[in-house]
């Protein structure tokens, strides 16, 4: 038995009308229009660019990468890594060193911002009024003032508190010294055979991981606990130390040389001896770390608050002590909420390191899109390279954090 419903059917359309009212055809039509507009814009842009370049007598190409670069660049991690010598190194070397400078700033900044941020986030949840108030004031002040202003502030303040270039102060007596030119410290110089110690360190790390896995398995199958922490420390310190001593201590420490006598202009720390951190780096590092930590603090607070109270009550009911509750119950669950926004804060810090351009720390934007662009005038190529480098960094960081996120993700049935 079938019943027929009398419904107001739309009239059957034929021909062009059917095509116009067909949703697929419409979608194709609008996509076609969009594609044509985009292609036309690209075509016009390329045409104009070719015309403009021809008018200015320039060519398009990356051949300028091989040209020697004679700009003076502040001594930083990048210049040390590449071994930059003005006039001998090429522009491609400058690109490499500026990327290295961006990355070292990002890595160091992310590391310390995470620590400070977690501290601030947990402090903000404290029952203690003073601690909570401190964290609240810190977070609210830091994240409501533009980063660029904070960079300017630190750059000026560091130069204010440090002794002059012919003088020196010290943080840790005998280890780290500083003046307005930068921070000076010891620098390890390796000799032949040091690579054996490096290999020993790698083996020791591998052995520690293997031992940790074995101890876990042992505990799961027999219930016996092993002294994992002590054994790991023993392996990590012992093995490299033994190898280091056997190979005849192939490492000497170079100390910064402070010249306190002689003509006034020669006084101060000698260049190129010992390790050196530029004040620009310190200013950027402090500004980026403290600024990003405020945002991370808010993320951590939200993440911990997102764990239901029943979870900590349940673990208390099971008799877990406070530390274990935090480590085994609260944090793993909070991490799931924390990681995605934390990733975008890491990316923000990396991108914000480009503000170095304002105070002259030689990273990607400052030295490559700034100095080199002014020197060779290849705007299209240089800005394109800068964009591609940042996109690559963003993509790699996202991929790593997604991998990490998948590891800690809740495995649901």
């Amino acid at each position, binding site marked *: 038995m079938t019943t027929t419903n009398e419904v107001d059917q739309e009239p059957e359309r034929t021909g062009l*009308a059917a095509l116009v009212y067909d949703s697929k055809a419409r979608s194709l039509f609008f996509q076609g229009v969009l594609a044509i507009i985009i292609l036309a814009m690209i075509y016009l842009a390329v045409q104009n660019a070719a015309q*403009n370049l021809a008018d200015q007598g320039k060519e398009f190409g990356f051949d300028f990468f091989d040209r020697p670069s004679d700009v003076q660049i502040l001594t930083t991690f990048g210049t040390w890594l590449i071994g930059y010598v003005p006039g001998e190194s090429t522009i491609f070397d400058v690109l490499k060193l500026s990327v290295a400078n961006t990355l070292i700033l990002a890595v160091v900044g992310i590391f310390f911002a995470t620590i400070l941020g977690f501290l601030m986030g947990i402090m903000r949840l404290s029952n203690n009024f003073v601690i909570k108030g401190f964290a609240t004031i810190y977070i609210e002040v830091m994240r409501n003032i533009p980063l660029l202003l904070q960079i300017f502030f630190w750059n000026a303040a560091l130069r204010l508190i440090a002794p002059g270039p012919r003088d020196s102060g010290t943080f840790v007596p005998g280890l780290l010294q500083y003046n307005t030119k930068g921070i000076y410290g010891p620098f390890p110089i390796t000799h032949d055979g040091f690579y054996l110690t490096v290999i020993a360190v790698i083996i020791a790390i591998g052995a520690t991981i293997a031992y940790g896995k074995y101890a876990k398995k042992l505990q799961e199958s027999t219930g016996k606990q092993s002294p994992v922490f002590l054994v790991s420390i023993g392996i990590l310190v012992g093995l490299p130390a033994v190898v280091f001593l056997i190979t005849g201590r192939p490492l000497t420490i170079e100390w910064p040389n402070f010249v306190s006598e002689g003509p006034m202009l020669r006084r101060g720390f000698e260049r190129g001896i010992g390790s050196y951190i530029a004040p620009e780096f310190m200013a950027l590092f402090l500004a980026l770390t403290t600024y990003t930590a405020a945002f991370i603090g808010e993320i951590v607070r939200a993440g911990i608050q997102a764990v239901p109270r029943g979870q900590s009550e349940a673990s208390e009911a099971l008799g877990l002590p406070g530390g274990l509750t935090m480590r085994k119950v609260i944090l793993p669950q909070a991490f799931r909420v924390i990681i995605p926004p934390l990733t975008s804060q890491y990316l923000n810090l990396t991108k914000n390191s480009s*503000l170095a351009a304002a105070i002259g720390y030689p990273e990607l934007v400052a030295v490559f899109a700034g100095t080199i662009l002014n020197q060779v005038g290849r705007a299209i190529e240089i*800005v394109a390279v800068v964009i591609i480098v940042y996109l690559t960094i963003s993509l790699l960081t996202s991929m790593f954090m997604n991998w990490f996120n998948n590891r800690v993700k809740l495995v649901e049935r």
Partner: protein
Amino acid sequence: MTDKNIAYLRTTEAPTLPPPSTEVGLRGWLWKNIFASMADYSSTGKAINSILMTILTVGSALFLYWLIAGILDFSIFSATFSDPEGQKREACVVNAGACWPYVQAKWYQFMYGFYPKEEVWRVNVSMFLLAVGTAWLVFPMPRRGLVAGLMLTAFPIISFVLLNGMPVEDDGDLSHIFAGVWFPLIIAGVTGAGWWLAKDGRLGEVAAAMAPILLMVTALFGLFAFLPLITAGLDIALGTTVVETNQWGGLTITLVVAIAGIVASLPLGMLLALGRQSDAPIIKYTSVIFIEVVRGIPLISVLFFASAMLPYFLAPGVDFNKLLRAMIGVMLFSSAYMAEVIRGGLQAMPKGQYEGGMSLGLSFWQQMRLIIMPQALTTVIPGIVNTFIGLFKDTTLVLIISIFDLLGMMNATLTDPTWATPTTAYTGYLVIAFIYFVFCFGMSRYSVYMENKLNRGHR
């Protein structure tokens, strides 16, 4: 004595004891909120915890004291407040604190840059309009929809005319304005008439389907035709002269760039968010690529793109203003971020809302306009405000392509040797930080307030 009942039965009620002093009053509050966390030594772990808390508390308190005392000392106790003899730097250099006469002397620059003094009423009027409009939208006032519409359409035009002025008065000849108006006006007229005839199906179904496109073309060309007329009319009415954008500066530029970014980012962000959710691959991937590329690079490189690379892609001879290029960069940048915020709202919409719209027979755009967007945008208001805060702070970056916003202007005044003292820079930083803090903290409080208001609705 022996048969006396030794059981004691109380016949009256015992007096109620006051709560222990650790629970009430100032002492109780102090105990609960400060000292309780430091006083538990019952086990090793708890003792370590208590000692750590003590160290942290004392450290925090000392640091806060040092900071607040330092700022008070700098800005009040050892500051220079007046410079009656006009000595400039000599007046300030004797004190170790802030140099307020410097701020007083440069305040005009902080606010308006090099905007001519006799024309400054124009900036003030448009800032006043901005303040009134924003206040109207932020507080529960009647007819917010209308005000929002005016702020997004009329306000930018009016403030452009006020701030920039139009070069019509120069020769008093209006014909060149009208010359450019006829052509778009005629096209708008023809397409408008076509839309009127086609919309009810009088010209057949195919034409009826095309009617919305005709309407859009009409609106576009109508805008082209009327914008110059409106601006010229306003200009003649107000009698403004042209103030080149390189004379603008300070807070004016900060607000102009930020408002441009905010106004453009909402509609563009909505389109991009919808595009990203679209089933049509070309539309979807265009949006995805745009959003991800812009979000993957720093604003500085977008600004470098706009200032160094964009001129190459324009037709030879076409050159536009540096401020406009920076504004375009900021608009593109903020719309990509806004798109992601709005996408969050769209994804939070239950599927039933879309299906409900469809079952009512609404078209896609009707669904979006009447059902989806109002709800999606309301749920993400906190996210939108946070994007605005980020954008407002990020406007400081325009100083890297030498546009002098509030921070850039302050930085530029530091090179003035007549005010060069050791504390001038810190005075400037303090003032600018305070101004930004007031704006950003205000916005973030508003976002918290909205969040609470919206949450209440969900419970």
